[in-house]
């Protein structure tokens, strides 16, 4: 394969969701640095806010009543169930809206980075307004400053409710947020003590959020006493705790290592992590700068980093649609696949996010991934049923959509208009796979429809998408 093409595809898969069908010709010509800067430039745009919440739901929230002085606003009894039901539907819409953005937006790095933070700041709520807000904060700061991101995420209603900070009160601290903040969001296990958790939980007392999702600080519930945290003593506030954690270089190391494992290689090269982390720390946590360092380094393109990552279900799904444009008859298919394959957006397995890597693959998920391209091609029905999710289903059952997806072959096949007949297999394989399969063209002959040139390209494509290698990038 042309070395440039492999590198550019590597960049597209890691800094985005795979190469787009309409730029195939550029893959072998463009220099990776040039491509990266164009992806970066496209990602510098301020992201649009996704507003999919039902207007009636929003109206109900506006009309919510205070249960008494100093109490939170509450929905009326009869409205609560409607709110929950509608939220579940709207969260599905938000899921599909975001997938659509990942698939079509030129701001690939921004959306990929946001997906990373979505797993890092994992929260699950049954409130569409909270989910919209958290995603918006994440997309707004995804390539900005980690300090801003951390502070703003910590003050979202989603995180406050999810990690029980609204129940964190003077005299009755709830340590959930403080614990996850250190274990998962900043410095990581082994770098703090139980006393640190207790002291910092007191600092976050009084942080709350209302039904609309606005942060509100309740001074009456805040513990004004003296706290000691990482060598600092005083009447520390929640903001002080976050600042102190950011002062710890370990936070930069922890975040950088996680980014390295997500974007480059699950087996982190500690030497490189440390160099990157020092720079990240010195830059005052400039995420964009960190990503530039990564994607413009020469080691990013080392063979040991190419074709070795197991695609997440979202990356697999979005990447397939970017390479092979298709019209989804029923977008609910995306949700069914997310469920069956184990990555439902806005529904992480727990606050630690998706573990990723080999955890994506078991016998059912691997076989399904390998069957789906053929099912779409042959318009077969999907017969697998996902497990129900009681947190959102509330005991109701879901029904299954079928594949009614139309592949838009025209846009794809024209990429091979100038390919000589004998070179077609190699051209398709090079485009689709970052790691060549041990299966060669000869082995594939019984499975190829040779009736026309078009059919030949189609069947090679579908078969190569049905290989274990297609699960890698």
């Amino acid at each position, binding site marked *: 394969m042309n070395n440039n093409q492999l590198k550019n595809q590597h960049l597209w898969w890691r800094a985005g969701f795979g190469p787009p069908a309409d730029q195939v010709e550029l893959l072998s010509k463009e220099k990776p640095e040039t491509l990266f800067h164009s992806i970066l430039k496209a990602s510098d745009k301020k992201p649009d806010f996704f507003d999919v919440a039902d207007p009636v739901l929003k109206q109900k929230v506006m009309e919510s009543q205070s249960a008494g002085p100093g109490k939170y606003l509450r929905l009326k009894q009869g409205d609560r*169930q409607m709110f929950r039901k509608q939220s579940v539907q709207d969260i599905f819409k938000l899921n599909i809206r975001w997938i659509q953005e990942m698939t079509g937006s030129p701001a690939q790095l921004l959306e990929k980075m946001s997906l990373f933070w979505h797993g890092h700041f994992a929260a699950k709520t049954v409130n569409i307004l909270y989910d919209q807000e958290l995603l918006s904060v994440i997309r707004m700061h995804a390539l900005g400053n980690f300090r801003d991101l951390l502070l703003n995420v910590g003050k979202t209603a989603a995180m406050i409710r999810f990690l029980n900070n609204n129940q964190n009160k003077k005299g009755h601290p709830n340590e959930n947020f403080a614990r996850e903040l250190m274990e998962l969001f900043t410095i990581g296990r082994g770098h703090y003590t139980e006393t640190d958790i207790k002291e910092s939980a007191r600092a976050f007392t009084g942080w709350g959020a209302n039904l609309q999702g606005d942060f509100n600080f309740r001074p009456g519930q805040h513990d004004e006493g003296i706290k000691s945290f990482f060598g600092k003593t005083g009447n520390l506030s929640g903001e002080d705790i976050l600042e102190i954690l950011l002062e710890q270089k370990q936070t930069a190391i922890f975040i950088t290592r996680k980014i390295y494992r997500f974007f480059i290689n699950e087996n982190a090269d500690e030497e490189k992590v440390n160099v990157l982390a020092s720079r990240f720390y010195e830059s005052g946590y400039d995420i964009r700068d960190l990503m530039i360092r990564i994607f413009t380094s020469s080691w990013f393109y080392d063979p040991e980093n190419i074709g*070795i990552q197991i695609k997440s279900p979202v990356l697999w799904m979005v990447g397939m649609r970017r390479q092979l444009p298709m019209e989804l008859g029923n977008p609910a298919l995306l949700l069914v696949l997310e469920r*069956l394959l184990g990555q439902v957006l806005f529904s992480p*397995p727990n606050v630690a996010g998706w573990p990723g890597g080999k955890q994506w693959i*078991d*016998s059912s998920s691997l*076989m399904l991934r390998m069957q789906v391209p053929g099912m779409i091609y042959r318009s077969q029905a999907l017969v697998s049923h996902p497990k*129900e999710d*009681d947190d959102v289903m509330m005991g109701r059952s879901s029904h299954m959509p079928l594949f009614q997806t139309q592949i838009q072959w025209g846009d794809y096949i024209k990429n091979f208009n100038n390919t000589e007949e004998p070179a077609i297999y190699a051209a398709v394989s090079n485009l689709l796979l970052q790691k060549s399969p041990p299966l060669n063209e000869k082995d594939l002959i019984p499975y190829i429809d040779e009736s026309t040139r078009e059919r030949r390209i189609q069947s090679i494509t579908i*078969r190569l998408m049905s290989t274990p290698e297609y699960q890698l990038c």
Partner: protein
Amino acid sequence: MLINRRKFLHLSSLATGTCMLPKFLKAFEGPVQGMGGNKVLVILQLSGGNDGLNTVIPVRNDIYYRERPGLSIPKEKTLSLDSEAGLHPALIHLKTLYDEGNLSILNNVGYPNPDRSHFRSMDIWQTASNSNEYLNSGWLGRYLDAQCVDCSRPTQVLEMDDSLSLALSGEKMKGIALRDPKRLYETSRDPFYKDLVRVGLLEPVDDPASYLYKVMAETLSGANYIFEQSNMRPVTRIYPDTEIGKNLKTIASLIASDINTRVYYVSLGSFDTHVAQQAKQEKLFRDLNDAIKPFTEDLKSNQRFEDVLMISFSEFGRRVGENGSGGTDHGTANNMFLISGGLRNKGILNEMPDLSKLTEGDLNQQLDFKQVYATVLKKWLLTDDLKILGRQYGYLNFI
């Protein structure tokens, strides 16, 4: 005697089975003999949080009747277990099992600092973690890791579903999920997959794709093996045409065969009865009852009932007080059914819930569910529970 005959059948069936397999898979057909006896565990997951108080009803408890003016089940309608407790009226066959000494009940099972979110609490039960830790592997997956060192197919642990639960996902190995042995077999028969595996398995083991090829080869080999076994001695009793009926039928026929499966995992739901609980729970219990009847009868006629232990669990119980919609909301501690022909302690094994001592309207846990796991791992599956659970828990005496 029985074991010897079974062992013989087992080895002979393996020999014929192997002959039918394509050559390339033979490398994957190591001995399938299970280690550690011939006991089988069936986990029945009641998804959604089953209301334990309306399952095993405290028929002499005034607080129960006071807190549930609309939902409580009158004493005379329950199936009487003892002076204190009655079973939900739909669980007729379970009452028979109880009377025979083949069903025991554990009350107040839970864990400290309970979480009321379905997914988090289910995670805790499936991974056997504490409520403040997050594990990426399930307890039965870790059992598989311990059991299936260098083994060819992870069929020791099977789930009757289209996707695999975290419970069966180990650090190294993962169990197989299937809804129907025939469907899995037909999928796996695609010659394209066989061709892929044939060449793929030749890849060096440090290659990133080799893990995928390994999973694929295990799946193909497992699919073939499971299908073959499921046809070996099909069960003849009539099972209801429900998901749970079909699943228990598959499990019964696999248990009757010589498969090396030690653990089956099956779910029923949803028990998340916030609204109109009475009818929903009754329907689910009827489905459960009607499926368990032929299942236990088949086990008995195949003389396997003493070797099979079925345990039920739910991610949490429900609140003591009913809500305003004819339902109940998420609670904490719950009861578990233990069904087997080989129970040592019979009946209701510990105190009924104390409704006068609640924490914020919820039952207090008395037993940690991990004690049940430890007991089952140690005494039934004869394996090292400490290695799988990471901590030592006190054993119970029901087996």
